[in-house]
């Protein structure tokens, strides 16, 4: 078995959507007797923005946790960049080039914004323990090189003014942005966003949508996101997976999904006669 093959194509706004980057095959995830995800398959193509939507408790976050290696599914296979991914610890998945943000911000509160972002660079830091203890030379050069990359992301997300502020002191919207920065600075092949706009007002949502689109456009990063705001999802994503009660009930472009009867039923309820 191998991954699904696609022909690359160009979107209306000039981005190239490539071949399959990741494919989930028949994933089933159980917690004891509860089946959180039931036999779900879908793929993520290079360069696209892929959304996972569904009502509360549909299993979206569980799905994202499977992708990021936090949960290991009982059944099914995860394919990434042409190879089947063996069971891995989350930090090993991170090293493959998969970064993520969390629904309830998971930043390091005791550290400054800069340190938080620099932590995202740790897979690029190759100097040994002894190098770091001595500092002069290799460790310092490496720190400076990585700092440069961190500063690029800081500029990109417009958080220059708060780079030395402890994260614990920041307001919610900025924390979300710092978390995005920390994931981005790892130069991920696949970026997972767990409800990037939860709890934001309209303006903050607009900002965040713009950043997500810019990330995709400028860095060519493939993005998979979970979001509740249907307007946002339909506007920014290329393809959408719809889940309900742990099952996949729809998959396709926003327009296809919007007109899918099962999806409409799940969201609006069905009339019982």
């Amino acid at each position, binding site marked *: 078995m191998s991954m699904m093959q696609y022909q690359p194509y160009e979107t209306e706004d000039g981005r190239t959507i490539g071949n399959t980057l990741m494919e989930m095959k028949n994933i089933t995830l159980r917690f004891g007797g509860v089946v959180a995800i039931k036999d779900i398959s879908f793929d993520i193509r290079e360069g696209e923005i892929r959304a996972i939507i569904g009502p509360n408790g549909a299993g979206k976050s569980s799905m994202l946790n499977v992708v990021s290696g936090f949960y290991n599914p009982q059944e099914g296979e995860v394919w990434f960049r042409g190879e089947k991914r063996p069971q891995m610890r989350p*930090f090993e998945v991170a090293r493959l080039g998969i970064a993520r943000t969390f629904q309830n911000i998971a930043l390091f509160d005791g550290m400054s914004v800069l340190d938080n972002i620099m932590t995202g660079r740790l897979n690029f830091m190759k100097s040994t323990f002894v190098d770091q203890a001595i500092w002069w030379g290799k460790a310092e050069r490496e720190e400076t090189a990585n700092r440069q990359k961190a500063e690029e992301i800081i500029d990109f997300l417009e958080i220059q003014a708060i780079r030395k502020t402890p994260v614990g002191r920041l307001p919610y919207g900025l924390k979300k942005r710092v978390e995005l920065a920390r994931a981005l600075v790892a130069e991920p092949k696949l970026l997972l966003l767990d409800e990037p706009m939860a709890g934001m007002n309209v303006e903050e949502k607009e900002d965040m949508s713009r950043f997500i689109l810019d990330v995709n456009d400028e860095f060519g990063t493939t993005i998979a996101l979970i979001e509740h705001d249907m307007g946002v999802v339909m506007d920014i994503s290329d393809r959408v997976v719809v889940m309900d009660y742990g099952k996949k009930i729809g998959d396709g472009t926003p327009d296809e999904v919007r007109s899918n009867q099962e999806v409409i039923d799940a969201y609006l309820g069905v009339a019982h006669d």
Partner: protein
Amino acid sequence: MFYREAGDFKTSYAEDNQTFPIKFDRYRYYFVLVVALLVIPFVISDYWANAVLLPFLIYAIAAIGLNILTGYCGQVSLGTGGFMAVGAYATYKLMTAFPWMDMVSVTLLSGLVTAIVGVLFGLPSLRIKGFYLAVATLAAQFFLVWLFNRVPWFYNYSASGQISAPERSMFGMAVTGPNAEVWVKYLFCLFFVILLSWVARNLTRGSVGRQWMAIRDMDIAAEIIGVNPLKSKLTAFAISSFFVGVAGALLFSVYLGAVEVGEAFGIQKSFLVLFMIIIGGLGSIFGSFAGAAFMVLLPVFLKILGVDMLGWATDIVAHIQLIVVGGLIVFFLIVEPHGLAQLWRLTKEKLRLWPFPH
């Protein structure tokens, strides 16, 4: 008034990253170094060395060690006394087994031995955290003291069960033993303090330190972004134990000269070092120094005030000391969990703008 960053522009990331980014701070630090290296050795007296300076330097190393583990990596340890004992006994065994070995190597090797023991006792940290880990390290404390008490090989089968440091010289001057001059002992300890605090600063500002702090602040998120928790926690245990082991080695060989393990490295030593970092400031190297200075100076200060000036009995002053320390721990935990280091930081932030509030 002098504490200003205006006009002190940074033009490279390396400059922005330096330990003391503000000029005044930098010069103050050089000044302290010069005084410690070039002035104090000439004016040092027996009383000051034995009552204040030597214990301060040695406990500062232990406090930095524990701070790396508890303050930076978030793993609580109550085994500091036990690990200091490992350092002390390793020194004793090395000194007696290899009489030709110089004291710097002996001390560093003792640190290394302690690091290995520390990693061993750090293994439970992969499974348990917080309160339960504290209990596990408490077990290490009691086990190690019991071991050094019960296995005669560790104290070379001496009748008293004590270990005492034989005389060893460096550059023709005695460092350990009854004939060692205090200024030599002082410089010997100072050498390790400068070396180790420099190493600690380097480790905590780089990638290793950020991984420790990430584990401390949110271990799940740390793992998701690529921190290997096993490696990170165990290196923290190793480095921390290395520091604590060196402190134990110096305490035994240079400062006390002879120890009985239960008395010198009992549970109260673990708490003493823990109090140092709580009062001084968790996750701060300056805090380790401040805490060590505070806990060393407090009894001296209370003795001068209570016994010498007010004429109270010595035991009353000793009790007052316990009350004061206990009260301060509660105070700091509630009001300022980041300790003296945070108070110092706040003062500096105020000073930067003083006398204009905005």
